[in-house]
C-alpha cells in the first residue's frame, strides 16, 4: 500500500481571494495535481481550529489554509484574527504532539492563479515526502472515540 502513496489535502479557502484565485488558475488552464479538495468559507476568519483537527481526523494528510493578503481582507480584518488564531493553534498542535508541519498557511489573492498552483503543488509534494498521516487515527483508536458518527443527520 505504501508503494504509491497519494496524499489527501484538505484546503480551506476564503471566498473572495483564494477561491477566486483558484478560479483564475482554472480559467487560465494552469495544470495542477488532483490531490487537494477545496472547502469554501466566506473568510479565513470563519475557520475554526476545530475544522483543521476534524480534517486530520477524517483522513487528511495535510491541511492548507489560504486567504486574502493581510491588509486586503474583503471583510477588513478577518484574516488578521485568523492569523493570530493560527499562531496560537500551531503551538498548541506541537504541544499536544500532532505534527504541525502538515498544516500550511498562505495568502493568495484573486489575481494570483499561478501562485495558487505553485502552492498547491508544493504542499502536495511536501506531504507526499512526509508520507501518510496516521498519528491522529491511531490516537483516536486509543481513546476509542467514534470518529464519523455524526448524529442528527436524517437521511430520507
Amino acid at each position, binding site marked *: 500500500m505504501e508503494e504509491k502513496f497519494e496524499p489527501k489535502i484538505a484546503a480551506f479557502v476564503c471566498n473572495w481571494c483564494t477561491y477566486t484565485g483558484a478560479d483564475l488558475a*482554472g480559467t487560465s488552464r494552469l495544470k495542477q495535481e488532483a490531490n487537494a479538495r477545496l472547502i469554501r468559507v466566506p473568510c479565513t476568519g470563519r475557520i475554526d481550529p476545530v475544522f483543521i483537527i476534524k480534517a486530520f481526523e477524517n483522513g487528511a494528510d495535510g491541511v492548507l489554509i489560504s486567504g486574502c493578503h493581510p491588509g486586503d481582507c474583503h471583510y477588513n480584518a*478577518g484574516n488578521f484574527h485568523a492569523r493570530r488564531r493560527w499562531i496560537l493553534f500551531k503551538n498548541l498542535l506541537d504541544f499536544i504532539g500532532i505534527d504541525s508541519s502538515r498544516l500550511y498557511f498562505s495568502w493568495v489573492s484573486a489575481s494570483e492563479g499561478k501562485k495558487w498552483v505553485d502552492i498547491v503543488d508544493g504542499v502536495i509534494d511536501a506531504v507526499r515526502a512526509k508520507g501518510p498521516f496516521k498519528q491522529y487515527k491511531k490516537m483516536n483508536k486509543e481513546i476509542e472515540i467514534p470518529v464519523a458518527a455524526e448524529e442528527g443527520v436524517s437521511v430520507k
Partner: protein
Amino acid sequence: MKIGVFVCHCGENIGRTVNCPEVSKACASFPGVVHSEDYKYMCSDPGQNLIKQAIREKHLDAVVVGSCSPHMHEKTFRKACASAGINSYMVEIANLREHCSWIHEDINQATKKAIDLMRFAVERVKFNQPLETIKVPVTKRSLVIGGGISGIQAALDIANAGFEVVLVEKEPSIGGHMSQLSETFPTLDCSQCILTPRMVEVYQHPKIKLLSYSEVEHVEGFIGNFKVTIRRKAKSVKEELCTGCGLCAEKCPIKKKALSEFDEGLSNRPAIYVPFPQAVPNVPVIDRSVCTYFKTGKCEMCKKVCGREAIDFTQQDTFVTEDVGSIIVATGYKLYSIDKKPEDSIYKGYGEYGYGKFKNVINGLQFERIASASGPTSGEMLRPSDKTVPKKIVFIQCVGSRDESKGFSYCSKICCMYTAKHAMLYKHKVHDGEAYVFYMDIRSGGKNYEEFVRRAIEEDHVNYIRGRVSRIYEEDGKLIVKGEDTIAGLPVVIEADLVVLATAMIAQQEAPKLAQTLNISYDKYGYFQEAHPKLRPVETNTGGVFLAGACHSPRDIPESVAMGSAAAAKSLVLFGADMLEREPIIAKVDATTCAGCFYCQKVCAYNAIEKKEIRDRLGNLQKVVAFVNSGLCQGCGTCNATCPSKSIELIGFKDDQIFAQINAFAEV
C-alpha cells in the same frame, strides 16, 4: 430529504476531462439522493428545465449542481430552482470546471475528484436552511469626494435628478486641475470659460451641499446606509459672514513667503488667500504655516480691515456627520514631481533634466499657467528666469511614464495631446519661435485627436523628434538639450530658452489611506481598483462606492466627465428602489446559550454586535447577550469561529454545514 443531482458537461469543458455520466451514476448512490442526471449545458434553457421538471416530478427538497464556479452560475441555478418552488438557498454548486476539469489532465483522477466535490456538496446541502433575502432601506443621498470636473459632473447629475449631494473638496475651492488649464485639446477652447459656469451651478444648486476645505475622516455602514464623518478644516474665516471682497488678501503684509499652489509655484500668494479669482466658494482661508499672527501673535491686519468681522483666529477643525446611500470617489491625480533633491523624493529619476535646479525647466501644469490669461504672466509667453520671450522651446514627453527603471510602466495617456497643444499655443503667441518635441510614440486615440496632432506638425510647423533626451545643462543663459533623433540616427543638440517636461500623472499620495477608509482596493500605483476592468469600470468591490475620473487611472477631461456621469447613473440606479435586497448570509445569536462574554464584539470589523438585555416577565434583568445588527453584518463569520460557546452562527456557513463537508472528506 430528497436531493436532486445535476452534472453539467459544459459542452466539452467539463466533459473532456471528467466522465460526467460516471459522476452522475456515483452520485445516485449517495444517501439522500433520489435523482441524478447529466446534461450537456445545464445553464441553458433546456438544462434549467430538466432541473425544474425533476423538482416537480420527484418533489425534491434540495438541488446540487456540478458545473462551473459558483461565482459564475450560482445565481442562475438558484433562480431556476426558486421558480420551481425550492428555496434558492437549498441549492449547492460543486465547482467541476475551474477547480477540476480545467486544471487536471488525467481523466480518472479528475473524475474521482469530481465525485468527491459532488459528495461534499450533497453532504453540505443536507444542512442548508431555506433563507429569505434581507431588505434594507436606502438613504437617497450621495457623497462626492473631490470637486474636480469629474466630481462636479457627478454631483450635478445626481442633484439634477432630484437627490441631495454632499460634495467634499480638500482645497479651499472646487475646480480641480481643470481650473488651472489655459486651453483644452482638441478644440482649444478656454478651460475656465467652460468650467466656471459649472462651478457656480454647483454652488447655487439647492440640492448640493458644498463642503470645501474638508476631508473625509471616517466611513462606516454599507451600501445604501453609509455614515460619513467629515473634517471641516479651520479656514480661520467665518464663511457665513464673508462677502468675498478680497480686502484681507490685498492688505496681508505677507506677499512673498508663500508660493501659489494654483500657479504651481510660479507666483506668490498672501497668507490669507483665495486660490484664484473665480474660486467657488469665494471665501479666503488663512494658511497658518506662514501667517504672522499664528507665528508671532501679532499683525491681525486682515481682522482690522474686514468690515464684516469675519476673521476668526480661534476657529478649530470641526466634524460633521452625513448619512448617505452612495459614495463617489473623484479625488483626481497629481503630477510626478522630480525635484532638485532626489534623495527627498521617492522618485529618484531625471536629475539629468534639472527640474527644480534650472528655473527654465518647468512641467506641463506650469506651462499651462504661463499660457493662461489668468496666470502669473497674464498669458504672455515669458520664461520664469528673466521674463523674456523664449525663442526656442523644447518639450519632452514621457517623463516618468512608460519608464520602468525611473518612473512608472504605464502610459499617462494625455501627455501626447497636451504637448501638441502646448506647442501650438506657443507658436500662436510667438510666431517666430521654434518648438521641438521629443517623443517616444505619439498616442492620439480619440475623437479629432490625431487630426489635432497633425495640425500642430503641418500647420504650426512644430518639429517632432523621435527620441529621448539624455541631459540638460545651462550655458550662457541657454539650456543645452542633448538628445538623439532615432529616426535619423543622429545626436541632437538644441540650445533652448525654455524646456517643458510632460511628467507622468500619478495617484494622489493619500489615495491608499482613503481606500482603506472606504474599504476599496487600489493597485500598485495607488490608483483605485474597479470591480471589473471591462464590465464594471466605475464600481468598486465595495457596494455603493463608485469611481470617477483620474483617481482610477490617467484620464482626460471628456473621459473624466463621462465617468462622473456614469458614477452618478450608478448611484441613481441605487436610489431607484426604496429597499435594497442583500444576501441573508449573516451571523445569528442563540440567546439561550450566549454567556455574554462579547468576544464576538471585539473581533467584529463592522461594529455589528450589539448588547441585548434579556428580562423575565417581571422585568428583572436576567442576562445581557449579544445581538447582531443585520444591517451592519457583512457575513465574514469571524465571530462564529471566535465564540467559545458556539452561540453565534453564520447563517449559510454554519458549523454543521462545514463539518458535513469535512466529514465527507473521510471517503476521499
